[in-house]
């Protein structure tokens, strides 16, 4: 499996600006990588002092159902932590899947 994963780009980056956090995720978000995104967001929230979290998924080229689950989990955990959650999207695979899944209305957008 490692070989396959190595070939597919995936990246999570976290930027802090005061209590505003921006988590950028790029590449392909699927069953094998969604754990890394969830872990990154959990770590940010556990560190505390988060007023708002923007999950920037404009760099995602692919998203499967597990990837969408990760977006939903990040939204729920952030709200449970008392912070605002917004999604930064661009038309593409993410907006398509959000539309098919009927969950666009579940997110606030940047």
């Amino acid at each position, binding site marked *: 499996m490692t070989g396959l994963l190595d070939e597919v780009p995936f990246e999570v980056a976290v930027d802090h600006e005061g209590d505003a956090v921006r988590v950028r995720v790029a590449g392909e978000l699927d*069953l094998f990588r969604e754990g890394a995104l969830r872990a990154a967001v959990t770590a940010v929230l556990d560190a505390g002092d988060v007023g708002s979290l923007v999950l920037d998924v404009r760099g995602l080229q*692919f998203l*499967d*159902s*597990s990837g*969408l*689950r990760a977006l*939903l*989990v990040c939204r729920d955990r952030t709200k449970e932590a008392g912070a605002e959650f917004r999604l930064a999207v661009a038309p593409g695979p993410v907006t398509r*899947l959000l*539309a*098919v*899944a*009927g*969950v666009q*209305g*579940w997110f606030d957008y940047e």
Partner: protein
Amino acid sequence: MQVMTDEAQRLAAVRRYQVLDTPPDGAFERITTLAARLFDVPIAIVSIVDADRIWFKSHYGLDVEQIDREPGLCASAVLQDGPWLVDDASTDPRTLANPLVAGEMGLRFYAGVPLTTNDGFNLGTLCVIDQQPRKLTDDEVASLSDLASVVMDQLELRLAARRTVELECELRRSAEVVARTLQQSLLPTRVPDVDGLDIAARYHVANCDQVGGDFYDVVPDTRGGCAVVVGDVCGKGTLAASMTGTVRWVLRATVADTWTPAGALGRLNSVLVNAQEDLDQYATAALVAVAPVRDGSTTVTVGLAGHPHPLLVRSGGTLERVGQTSPVVGWTLEAEYTEVAATMRGGDFLVLFTDGTLEVVAGHGATEDVAVAALLAPLAGRPAAEVADALDAALGEGVLRDDAAFVVVAVR
């Protein structure tokens, strides 16, 4: 240790270690080299005593890979409980007539320690040999015995590694069997016959040792029609499989005399939300009520829970997307479900599929509607099996990244 002397059992042990005729191995070469240096002898050997030969796993200072069991001294050494020492073979009554001693080889000194397995069988020896008579001190005999234990450790290690690999293969095989069995339990064994309808369903597995999250079902109802569902549980493996089972059985239980796709999805949603606690799983489904109408037409009522639209291909070759998207099931009780009805007539067919199917048929990034329309439109009016075959072929050409399932419902 009590040494077992039954030769048949000893040979079985030799076979079990699978060491005979294996290629040279650095670990054993190092041990014989070390033994030769340590005891200042020209020859050191790791031997394995086979039925009719003595095979050398490592042979320092001797350019021979095996000798006959007679007259080899190792054959005598493996019959011993401990070290077998011959200080001067030319005067020792046990060896003086041995051709290795009396002949060209001129062997005078032999010290061999049996390689004894955990269960007490001597596989062979670690032995040191000289053409001069010698006498080992007790300390040296102890060192030779220690080295023999190192040889045995290496043999045990290799056996354990081989067993681990075999076990791993076995586990993998059984995991695949479990996955396949589980998968099959989540799909109907056969598509039921429903009057006036021609139904075909197919399932493609992307990864054979993992249970996929896709499923489909066709359930006849008491109104002469049936419920058709194609769905996808996010994730894979047993967690996904258990949710798939729940979805299937809740839907089966719900599809009775009076049911609607929107009502059934709402009920399914609340069951899943309440049942799964913190599992963070959701499912998508296209659920269709297929009902015969008195005028000979068929009404299909489509409920969509976060799932791609079914496509209705008219006998004339036009395509319609049927349904209105509602959210996925299993995430929140706030989700609401709607349904949309369409009328089908003879020669029309409806295709329900999972995302994985669309993705492959359309190709990555392509406009799905266009690609799928191009594939399906020419099949207008054809039997369900023929439509399914065409989709199968398209799936066969593409790269299956996800599982793929679809059901074709044609009106006769």
